[in-house]
């Protein structure tokens, strides 16, 4: 059990590419931290630096109060689950799990106990003599988890462990990982590009982009108060609608805040005739309808400039908007609709999108 602390960690590759541009945060003991971001944002690199598979250019990686920059991966007391599982193809399930323990010179009985216990937990007990190729994707994933569990490490590292599974299995495994982590209370770092996984798994959510941390916090905090437009559009599905505001056309109440960009989540928009006080009303022409069962997403483009002028809070540039409406009732394609949102549901950002403006 240990906390993980990063202090101004940087990674520059020999070619000069700066993958991690100074990241520092702390994950308290026993917490589940999820690193989320688009491809190439540096989240995997950061995880691999914690694992010791990548060198740290500058800064400190601290596991349980010990700076491990120069420590071999095997001696960091961590265990990692890889995206493609990285099981040893020629070893049985049992040996896959036992290999790391044997290398540490653990007693045979102890290894046996641990492996069988882990197999029990992961429902692999009947498959210990099989080779990885005789297992399904989900089972392989469990073996990879088992290999991590038997080590009883201070920290679990997950590198997109579910992205090779089909959608249904992914949800099931996601729940299992969370349960397992709660039970073992092992500090975990989990990398994913799937914002849904991130939201559901995390105690601490770290949203990354371009080698920097955009925002750290609890998933709900981040969802309800995104600090930047990047976070606003990355967290939440479908993404938040973002509308650039023109200075000369801002409504007085919004202009006073100095906001340049206005955001509103699809689920906060309702179809109505009039905008609530201080809120916005958007006139849209319906382009596409997506029915997912419990709800329906309406994709619309903003109506012409004349219509836009009349809406609060001012003229908005053209752009596609998404409105989420509950149930299956939806307007026809081509229909003109008006979507409104109250003032309290609006997110305001500075013109460059880098900071949130509280109103």
């Amino acid at each position: 059990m240990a906390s993980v602390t990063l202090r101004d960690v940087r990674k520059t590759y020999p070619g000069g590419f700066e993958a991690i541009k100074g990241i520092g945060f702390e994950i308290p003991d026993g917490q589940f931290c999820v690193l989320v971001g688009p491809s190439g944002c540096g989240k995997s690199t950061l995880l691999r630096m914690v694992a010791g598979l990548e060198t740290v250019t500058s800064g400190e990686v601290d596991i349980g109060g010990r700076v491990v920059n120069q420590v071999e991966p095997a001696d960091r007391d961590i265990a990692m689950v890889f995206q493609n599982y990285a099981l040893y193809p020629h070893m049985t399930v049992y040996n896959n799990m036992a290999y790391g323990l044997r290398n540490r010179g653990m007693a045979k009985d102890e290894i046996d106990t641990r492996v069988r216990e882990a197999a029990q937990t992961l429902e692999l007990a009947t498959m210990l003599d099989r080779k990885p190729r005789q297992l399904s994707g989900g089972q392989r994933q469990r073996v990879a988890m088992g290999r991590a569990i038997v080590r009883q490490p201070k920290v679990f590292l997950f590198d997109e462990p579910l992205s090779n599974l089909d959608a249904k299995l992914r949800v099931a495994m996601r729940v299992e990982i969370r349960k397992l982590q709660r039970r073992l209370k092992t500090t975990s770092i989990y990398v994913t590009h799937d914002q849904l996984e991130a939201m559901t798994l995390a105690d601490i959510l770290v949203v990354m982009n371009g080698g920097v941390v955009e925002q750290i916090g609890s998933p709900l905090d981040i969802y309800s108060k995104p600090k930047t437009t990047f976070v606003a559009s990355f967290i939440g599905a479908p993404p938040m609608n973002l509308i650039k505001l023109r200075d000369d056309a801002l409504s007085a109440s919004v202009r006073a805040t100095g906001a340049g960009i206005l955001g509103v989540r699809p689920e906060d928009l309702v179809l109505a005739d009039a905008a609530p006080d201080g809120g916005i009303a958007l006139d849209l022409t319906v382009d596409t309808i997506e029915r997912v069962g419990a709800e329906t997403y309406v994709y619309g483009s903003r109506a012409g400039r004349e219509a836009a002028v009349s809406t609060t809070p001012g003229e908005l540039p053209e752009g596609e908007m998404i409105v989420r409406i509950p149930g299956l009732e939806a307007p026809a394609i081509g229909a003109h609709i008006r979507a409104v949102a109250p003032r309290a549901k609006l997110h305001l950002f500075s013109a460059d999108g880098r900071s949130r403006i509280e109103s």
Partner: protein
Amino acid sequence: MVEHRRWNDIVAYLILTLGVLLVVFPVYVALIASTHDAATVVNGNMPMTPGSHTWDNYYRAIFVGGSRASREPVGHMLINSFVMAMGIALGKILISILSAYAVVYFRFPFRQTAFWIIFITLMLPVEVRIYPTYKVIADLKMLDSYAGLILPLIASATGTLLFRQFFMTIPDELLEASRIDGAGPYRFFKDTLLPLSVTTMAALFVIQFIYGWNQYLWPLLITTQDSMQTIVTGIKKMLTTTDELAEWQLAMATAILAMLPPVAVVIFMQRLFVRGLVETEK
């Protein structure tokens, strides 16, 4: 999709059968010749059915040798050839897998240069570098020895390239998982790379065993004593006679004997080869 038509099949099988007959016929003639006595073989009307001297011919070929005193029995040559072919095959696997391991998994200065130098040796087979190689072996006093027969033929790039290509298909995560599991370079090699390489090793073994077995020029050059001769050079010597008839029946028996080990290797290793292909998965 392959379409099945009766006439296509018949034509295909006809051509295949013709091809097989064409290839097998000389072997068959050799086999028949090795069962007759010398007179029957040389009189120009050799029968196409086995004769009655099989046991006699093979016994003489293996244990006694030809009628001339200088000729070695084939049994000894078979052992020499076997040692040489095994030495080349195993030695090559050993140095190839180690050098490929170094080139693929270790970062050291001039790694690429080292690889290209190994690569370039592909263009220098024994025949091209025969004089300097002979000089080196002679200076090392390895003439007429197994070491002299084996060592110069071990050093070439094919094996290294083969293993390099194979290692590059092994996902990096396997190495990383090993590192996290506490396996150092030696353990990773022994516990992961070697077991995964079994098929590649089997393939290389087959190729190199036959390559070593069939060597003619090099053994001819560096062996002067009859006791170090290999069977391939031995066959040739049986036929170079000055004032008497070549003992064709013995030469043919020797040729058949010379064919057996490579055939055995192919048949035996092929099974391992296929099994390995089916069983390993990266």
